[in-house]
């Protein structure tokens, strides 16, 4: 009967194979679960039985981890698991109609598994294809640029049960859409050059003395350069590109200076968990300049004395894994990774790729480290910080993909060269992921200091009402602010640049973002776990037309509470999209203020919608009079 039933022995075989490949190490739990699901379509009780005995960890630990990540299924979800990206840009491009079309085509209800167990259709957070949406993931493989015709073709292939590997490759073609390239995307760079340049920055006698440890703890003398490389990074004024903008040189130095316990090593982590809705520049960096990124990680390892590296690749970018592994393999062959890199004795560093499984919170560095250790992605209590107590308690640097790419170029061309680009407070370039209402969505790399207006002109945006910079946790800008600039001194950004023209309803934009935060809250702390749900309910209440000024003050109060009491940045910023749009696009809210006095969120007619669905009735007599209306 069910397609999802594999024989217990077959499941055990898969589990044993995967567990053996990961050296029976429970700290690889997330990778183990991912690979089991890729083979078995879900993580069945039989698989957990087997994992429990082969890994020697309690069932609660396995189920706790499996239950945390959106892309792990402990219940069968079909042989074909379709998830429509539900970012606001996908919405604007009509993803809802396409999802309905696929559901109707396949006779499956949204969010449910078809009766024959073949397919499920649901939605997921932004998959990073905003410049070529609407997009979906099928069995965690990205499929952009959907059209009604494509949806019909997909339905046909699913009905015919054609294995995904035999589907037309064109369906999975992801474009880079690089519209403006600068020092990173147009890098004048050959693999190994940055490392050699770093090594060649041999310090003078005085520096040599301060550099007794060099690459690896315990080595007798400097190999020439680590401290000098660090100096170049500092001179460049490089700041983190993930959004927070921490000074890279300071982070590296703190990691370098952290005490190393016996048997411990320093760790370099590249944060490619690009989950902020509207951001997709790391995807393009990794697909077009993987060498530059890996070289930047190796430069970091050289500067701080690290021997182990990880790339934390978001699950939505699973399709890049083979490509990235191929680049890593080539770099090992070319002696750019592995032992004695470029012939430098003791220069050992290698990189593994860890694939995430659908959790925005893992972009937060300490949650990311928890996930790397095979745990639930819950942000840690800090201090201590990762630079001293990171991956498996070892000193760890976590930097964004773009930061490493920039670091490689700084090692190659020097800090002064880099500091000459951009503005005084924001050196270098910033890669923007432009999407929404414009003619040329895609990737734009600018020197810092570019104005919003300039970007809008370059991407062919017309009648622009608003721009959301840096995603939902960033800032929403109205027309009067378009002369402001991208830079740490004015508008810092992780890279998202989402354009909304005058036809868009900014209330619905904010509501989409609030739903996103509610879905992605990790649930660890009370204010964010409950507060994001309360906020979502308030926005839905306004959406249904039951809003009143009372609800504004409730939103205001929730915002303050989330700001002051939340455990991490997710909770701190969850109210941003609402507060920004209330301040700048108040008419979009007032339109929904049908009530001057308080109105309860409960609406009897809406509560009856489940009954209407069950009975298949939707005529006038199945509705109460004077209902607010609206759909979930």
């Amino acid at each position, binding site marked *: 009967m069910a397609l999802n039933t594999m024989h217990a022995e077959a499941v055990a075989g898969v589990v044993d194979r995967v567990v053996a490949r990961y050296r029976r190490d429970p700290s690889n739990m997330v990778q183990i679960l991912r690979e089991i699901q890729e083979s078995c379509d879900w993580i069945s*009780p039989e698989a*957990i*039985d087997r994992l429990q005995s082969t890994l020697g960890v*309690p*069932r*609660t*630990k396995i*189920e*706790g981890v*499996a*239950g*945390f*990540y*959106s892309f792990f299924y402990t219940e069968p979800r079909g042989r074909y698991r379709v998830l429509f990206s539900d970012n606001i840009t996908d919405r604007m491009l009509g993803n809802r109609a396409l999802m309905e079309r696929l559901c109707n085509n396949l006779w499956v209800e949204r969010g449910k598994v078809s009766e024959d167990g073949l397919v499920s259709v649901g939605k997921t957070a932004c998959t990073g294809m905003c410049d070529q949406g609407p997009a979906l993931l099928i069995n965690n493989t990205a499929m952009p640029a959907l059209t009604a015709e494509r949806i019909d073709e997909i339905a046909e292939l699913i009905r015919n049960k054609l294995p995904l590997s035999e589907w037309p490759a064109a369906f999975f073609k992801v474009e880079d859409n690089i519209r403006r390239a600068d020092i990173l995307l147009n890098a004048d760079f050959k693999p190994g050059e940055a490392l050699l340049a770093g090594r060649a920055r041999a310090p003078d006698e005085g520096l040599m003395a301060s550099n007794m440890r060099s690459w690896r703890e315990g080595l007798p003398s400097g190999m020439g350069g680590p401290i000098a490389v660090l100096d170049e990074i500092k001179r460049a004024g490089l700041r983190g590109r993930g959004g927070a903008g921490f000074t890279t040189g300071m982070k590296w130095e703190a990691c370098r200076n952290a005490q190393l316990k016996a048997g411990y090593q320093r760790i370099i982590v590249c944060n490619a968990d690009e989950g902020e809705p509207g951001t997709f520049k790391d995807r393009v960096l990794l697909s077009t300049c993987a060498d530059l990124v890996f070289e930047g990680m190796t430069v970091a390892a050289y500067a701080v004395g690290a021997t182990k590296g990880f790339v934390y690749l978001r699950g939505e970018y699973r399709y890049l894994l083979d490509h990235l592994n191929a680049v890593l393999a080539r770099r090992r062959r070319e002696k750019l990774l592995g032992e004695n890199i470029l012939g430098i004795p003791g220069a050992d560093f290698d990189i593994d790729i860890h694939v995430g499984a659908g*959790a925005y919170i893992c972009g937060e560095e300490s949650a990311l480290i928890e996930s790397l250790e095979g745990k*639930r992605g819950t942000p840690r*209590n800090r201090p201590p910080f990762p630079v001293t107590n990171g991956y498996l308690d070892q000193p760890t640097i976590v930097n964004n993909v773009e930061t490493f790419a920039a670091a490689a170029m700084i090692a190659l061309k020097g800090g002064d060269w880099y500091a000459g680009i951009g503005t005084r407070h924001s050196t270098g370039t910033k890669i923007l992921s432009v999407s929404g209402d414009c003619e040329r969505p895609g990737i734009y790399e600018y020197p810092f200091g570019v104005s919003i207006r300039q970007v809008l002109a370059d991407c062919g945006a017309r009648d622009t009402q608003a721009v959301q910079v840096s995603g939902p946790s960033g800032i929403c800008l109205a027309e009067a602010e378009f002369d402001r600039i991208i830079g740490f001194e004015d508008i810092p950004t992780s890279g998202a640049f989402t354009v909304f023209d005058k036809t868009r309803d900014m209330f619905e934009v904010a509501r989409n973002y609030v739903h996103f935060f*509610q*879905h*992605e*809250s*990790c*649930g*660890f*702390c*009370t*204010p964010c*776990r*409950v*507060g*994001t*749900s*309360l906020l979502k*309910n308030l926005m839905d209440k306004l959406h249904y037309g039951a809003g009143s000024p009372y609800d504004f003050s409730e939103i205001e*109060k929730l915002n303050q*509470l989330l700001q*002051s*009491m*939340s*455990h991490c940045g997710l909770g701190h910023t969850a109210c941003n999209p609402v507060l920004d749009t209330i301040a700048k696009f108040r008419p979009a809210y007032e339109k929904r203020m049908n009530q001057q006095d308080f109105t309860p*969120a*409960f609406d009897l007619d809406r509560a009856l919608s489940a009954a209407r669905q069950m009975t298949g009735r939707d005529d006038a007599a199945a509705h109460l009079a004077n209902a607010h209306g609206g759909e979930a």
Partner: protein
Amino acid sequence: MSLTFTLDGKTIPFEDGQTIIQAAGKAGVFIPHLCYHPEFKPHGSCKLCTVKVNGRHTASCTMRAMPGMVVESDTEEINAERRALTQMLFVEGNHFCPSCEKSGNCQLQATAYHLGMMSPHYDHFFPNRPVDASHPEVLLDFNRCILCSLCVRASRDVDGKNVFALSGRGIKTHLIVNARSGQLGDTDFALADKAAQVCPVGVILRKRQGFAVPIGERKYDKAPIAETVTEGK
């Protein structure tokens, strides 16, 4: 010279490595808390114990005391925030105090009284959380779970059993037990376990012991929580 910081203007001595809430408890000053328990590694999740350190909000159960820190705790602003968090916990689960066996011994209820919570304020979520009566001696009523993870820590760190864990994410975070069936009766949980003693609310209940102490004569009926919960008591 001994180390001190100030808490609401009062000088609090501390030893190196102590957290703010530990030092405050030793000095007899109550800071509201739910997921903190002096015998366990702090979790820092309920956020009830949040204080302001030099003007910045931080959880006092995870923040180490430092010499000269200026800590605010019992202020109108912070208590209002704690009250809101308590209200959130009340609407998130299904808490019906009058019919709860733990009433009067419940830390959530006592904390709500302490903070002057007069209503749940927010709309109730009314989640569907089935009870687990599979164990011969213990009932699990998940309706009251506030996800403090004390039972998780007690079972793992003291009992060495890992009977409990948190699964799910966000508002769907929930407590699970260590059995394929998901039933407590199929685990090695025992009434004598530390994990059976630490629930601050009414999730882990001993069967056939209901209302042994009449309402009105229970722990927090006799004295408000601020007078009963300090370090070592």
